[in-house]
């Protein structure tokens, strides 16, 4: 009743393979896009932007990136933080070296550089799988953080070892630097997320996405069908790192403004994004959004309820957050490996018939 697909017939294969085959979903998608682009920017303030929206948008890009690698291609990676750092430092070097070029181009180029680095670190995936690959990417994480700490060229020899985003403008509006309006921060992240999500969705529903999933589900059968495992895995690493690099660049330039690599892009960041896709749903673009939203909102919600309403001490609430996340990870890994996205699909299947199941 609430959610119906009866009478929604397709007359072409194009219509059948679109992203939202059910009309109701399509309307909701356009409605959400309209609200995100036309309503929220006018009401957003500093608190909402910094606590919720901007981190959500940036983490969603990172989660989409990691989901392509881990959820679609089945290659576990613990190097997300390191690859975000590559994006951030690439963006910083580009911004300071070519101040006249648009920041948008810098961010995209930073993604491209990260893609190349990611593909290079993806080379071991041809020989090793699963747990051992995870350890290899962990090595990438530590190496990259060490590299950006050690080689002062990356932070332009600044005394603090930090990188600071200079002020840059898009269409006359500041999007980085201290004078950025919350809505401008929000809009640039939103545009990048929307484009990334559409690109990711198109890639995953097409030939290349199918060859990734084939490698994930059964690599021997994939090979016999004509999937070149080298190409499939390296493109997965490259595309995944491209998105993660963009999110790293945005995280540094737009969200934080000043970054110290170990603090902002440490191993915790790799785990945070991995938790997002586990809770949100492996192998699902929607799951990347759901997981990012969940893990960004959870500490905020706990703080509002625990500290502001119930008056608990702050450290108790912070620890409670960790406990809940840990318990949820275990719950989802055991009960629902496809995460919130699968719960959402099941709810939709139920809603098709509700409240008259016969």
């Amino acid at each position: 009743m609430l959610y119906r697909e009866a009478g929604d017939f397709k007359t072409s294969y194009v219509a059948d393979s679109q992203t939202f085959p059910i009309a109701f979903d399509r309307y909701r998608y356009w409605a959400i896009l309209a609200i995100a682009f036309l309503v929220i920017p006018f009401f957003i303030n500093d608190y909402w932007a910094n606590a919720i929206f901007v981190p959500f948008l940036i983490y969603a890009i990172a989660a989409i990136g990691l989901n392509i690698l881990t959820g679609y291609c089945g290659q576990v990676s613990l190097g997300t933080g390191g690859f975000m750092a590559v994006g951030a430092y690439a963006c910083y070097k580009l911004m300071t070296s070519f101040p006249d070029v648009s920041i948008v181009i810098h961010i995209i180029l930073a993604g491209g550089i990260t893609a190349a680095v990611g593909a290079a670190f993806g080379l071991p995936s041809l020989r090793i799988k699963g747990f051992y690959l995870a350890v290899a990417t962990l090595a990438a994480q530590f190496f990259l953080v060490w590299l950006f700490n050690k080689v002062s060229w990356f932070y332009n020899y600044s005394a603090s070892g930090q990188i600071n985003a200079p002020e840059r403008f898009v269409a006359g509006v500041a999007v980085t630097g201290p004078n950025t309006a919350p809505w401008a921060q929000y809009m640039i992240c939103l545009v990048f997320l929307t484009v990334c999500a559409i690109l990711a969705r198109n890639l995953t529903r097409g030939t290349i996405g199918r060859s990734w999933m084939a490698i994930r589900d059964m690599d021997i059968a994939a090979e016999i069908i004509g999937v070149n495992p080298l190409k499939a895995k390296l493109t997965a690493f490259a595309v995944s790192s491209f998105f993660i690099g963009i999110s790293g660049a945005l995280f540094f330039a737009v969200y934080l403004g000043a970054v110290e690599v170990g603090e902002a892009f440490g191993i915790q960041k790799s785990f945070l994004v991995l938790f997002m896709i586990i809770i949100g749903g492996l192998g699902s673009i929607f799951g990347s959004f759901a997981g990012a939203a969940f893990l960004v909102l959870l500490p905020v919600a706990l703080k509002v309820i625990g500290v502001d309403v119930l008056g608990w001490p702050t450290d108790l609430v912070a620890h409670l957050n960790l406990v809940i996340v840990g318990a949820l990870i275990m719950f989802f890994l055991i009960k629902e490996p496809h995460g919130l996205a699968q719960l959402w699909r099941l709810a939709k299947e139920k809603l098709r018939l509700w409240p008259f199941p016969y």
Partner: protein
Amino acid sequence: MKDIIEPYVTPDGRTIGGVLMDMRNITLRFGGVEAIKDISFDIREGEIRAIIGPNGAGKSSMLNVISGFYHPQEGEVWFRGQKRPPMKPFQVARLGIARTFQNIALFEGMTVLDNVMTGRLTHMKSNMLAQAIWRGKAEREEVENREKVERIIDFLEIQAIRKTPVGRLPYGLKKRVELARALAAEPKLLLLDEPMAGMNVEEKEDMSRFILDVNDEFGTTIALIEHDMGVVMDISDRVVVMDYGRKIGDGTPDEVRNNPQVIDAYLGVAHD
């Protein structure tokens, strides 16, 4: 081995062409174990060629040699009149050789449709950027290939389950989906590793009918391994018999049935 290279017409009216694949003196060793010992046989265009033999005879190893998983220490593989250099399985697939597996090897997390579409991978050429944007060539190619895939889905009568994840399907249907995926590649040579293992009589009859139909309608050359003698003798044009890595018989089902060595291998022989 028979030496007639000229095409001939089978009793049921199909034309068998020239030699498509020629295995010459193949020897395959795993360490000290010789899985295949100096075996030669050919597969001719348009025929259904069976490889039979008791367990451990080396049949699956032979299929793995053809599809590029194993590389024989000695011997040559000739395909379409050319000597094939050592190749990786995905390169063999691009030559037009598709196969199914003894233990089903489908992509469990994907739908039936996606599984079969994956089979068309070697025919899809649009690059990554075009696919990311999904306009023009990529979309057109997707639709063209979808049409071909839908024809195969119709042919194998799996329309009703095309959007079902493969993990939820029963065994018999999975076998059929795997056949569909292999067919989607429009192979010149289709290898079937025990396509009827674990099926009941009715499912076997269905599968035999599909194999015959595939051969008849698409003209696909088929090489299959099967244990059910009744099925093998009924549907195949020529049979290779293997035992302990050696070839002990080769010929039409009738010839093979009356071959004393084959009878010994299957029924045992009195040692006095």
